[in-house]
């Protein structure tokens, strides 16, 4: 169960964002916990392709009926691709937050930043502490 929720191959940011790092690029998204807390997404405000993202800072917005939430970049870099499919079908982020619900692909500017992110186990402990 937990493995489905927080896949082992990802790194996690405390604001409930994940990164799948592949070489000098990474794919970003929001975690199962985040989509569950927001409820079904109704709107996605995408970032611009080519925009610079900074670790810990917002780069996009998602909106459900009850809340708007900033999406925080786990790592710094430049956006090379935005998932257009979720603009029309934002609920994909809820049904498949780690797969088809990805948000952006980024060329990393500083791969050492990954060390300050949590692995799946650490993230699960972090979630448990949140209560």
């Amino acid at each position, binding site marked *: 169960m937990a493995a489905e929720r927080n896949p082992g191959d990802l790194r996690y940011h405390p604001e409930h964002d994940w990164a799948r790092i592949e070489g000098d690029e990474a794919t970003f998204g929001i975690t199962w916990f985040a989509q569950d807390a927001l409820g079904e997404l109704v*709107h996605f405000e995408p970032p611009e392709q080519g925009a610079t993202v900074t670790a810990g800072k917002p780069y996009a917005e998602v909106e459900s009926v009850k*809340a*708007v939430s900033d999406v925080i970049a786990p790592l710094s870099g430049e956006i090379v691709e935005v998932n257009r499919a979720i603009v029309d079908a934002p609920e994909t982020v809820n049904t498949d937050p780690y797969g088809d619900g990805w948000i952006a692909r980024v060329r990393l500017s500083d791969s050492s930043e990954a060390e300050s992110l949590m692995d799946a186990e650490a993230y699960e402990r972090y979630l448990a502490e949140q209560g």
Partner: protein
Amino acid sequence: MSYLALTEADRDAMLEAIGVESLEELFADLPEGVRFDRPLDVPPALTEQELTAYFEQLASQNEHNGSHVSFLGAGLYDHYVPAVVDAVLQRGEFLTAYTPYQPELSQGVLQSIFEYQTAICEVTGMDVSNASGYDGTTVAADACYIAKHATGRSKVVITEATNPQVRQVVKTYAPGFGLEVVEVPHRGGATDPDELRTAAEDAACAIFQQPNFFGVLEPAPDLAAAAADAEALPVAHVDPISLGVLEAPGHYGCALAIGEGQSAGNHVSYGGPHYGFLAARSEFIRRMPGRIVGETTDAAGNRGYVLTLQTREQHIRREKATSNITTNQTLLALAGLVYFSWLGPQGLREVGETCMALAEYAKERLVATGLELPFADRTTFKEFAVRVGRNARDVVRDALAHGIHPGYALGRDYPGMDDVLLVAVTERRTKEEIERLAEVLAP
């Protein structure tokens, strides 16, 4: 007179249930230093009858539109409010309800607002309207806020021929929004599109009024084009009563349409409450401040209405909200909806035509007595400026002695116009009243 049901017996039973001996114990948490230990220094309580007598006395000290023939406008107008409006507004289920947070119990209000939004979109030619703003001045500030966030620019342009109070409110809000306000002067009672174009460089929006404060018809499509050319959002501040005869802002290139709703269904009421309307093209829907009602269904497939896109609003987005507006002007907007529905498209056109015809007649009669119109070559709607030969405020005072209020003295808002009067002629005026106006103003 009080509205409490509470009796001694009630109080005793309730205190016992709570587990305290006296009412004072309920306030035990209040520190001594902040307790108010004397009776409030306010006049003694009045019974309903005494209240009525007192307020009737206060009301009798006011010279209202019924006590003289009024040609006073300048933003709020003596239009006819049909009896159905008052009847609908006195339905307790509308009057005493609050914001429809629980939609299942509030379909009356929600559907009314949906219908109001539709009516405003229709008259302004826009795609989306909110459920109302406070009045015709604050919706201009709202428009600036939308434009700032949509364009990223920090300057707004507004014409000098726009209502002075609208301009003043925009200037009051601007510093907090981080906006610079630039005014474009009028030329002979209207605005020059080239001047607007120049001023609108690097502006988030350009606001103009149609008809403008002088009652003059601006070259609105050209002003909108001039703003768009500078990549500023064109914003038209319009008179709802004119929209049966004048083109809708959405049909000549405006991004936003705003205005004061009072002319459509509200009594003058010494300045308020009324409603401001704000409508936009669909691309701005997520930036709209205030409530918006949307259509949906329940599980059984029944159509229903809910507050939607609420994430924009203060109670969810908090510091990122599109505005802080909570309580708005729903009941007055409902009056507007009833009014528009009572008139229908034919009636709205007829009101506009009647106002224009009577105003034109008034211009002719005044000119015939020898008075001059400062903007004689301009087409006007229901209001126009006339030069009265001496201080306009004195002219007003003298005319009132004859039971006529001849209009608004423009000198306090526009330099060099101390002898100019703004005369408003609504559908409530008659030829006979206009004749009397001409007699009274004749030099």
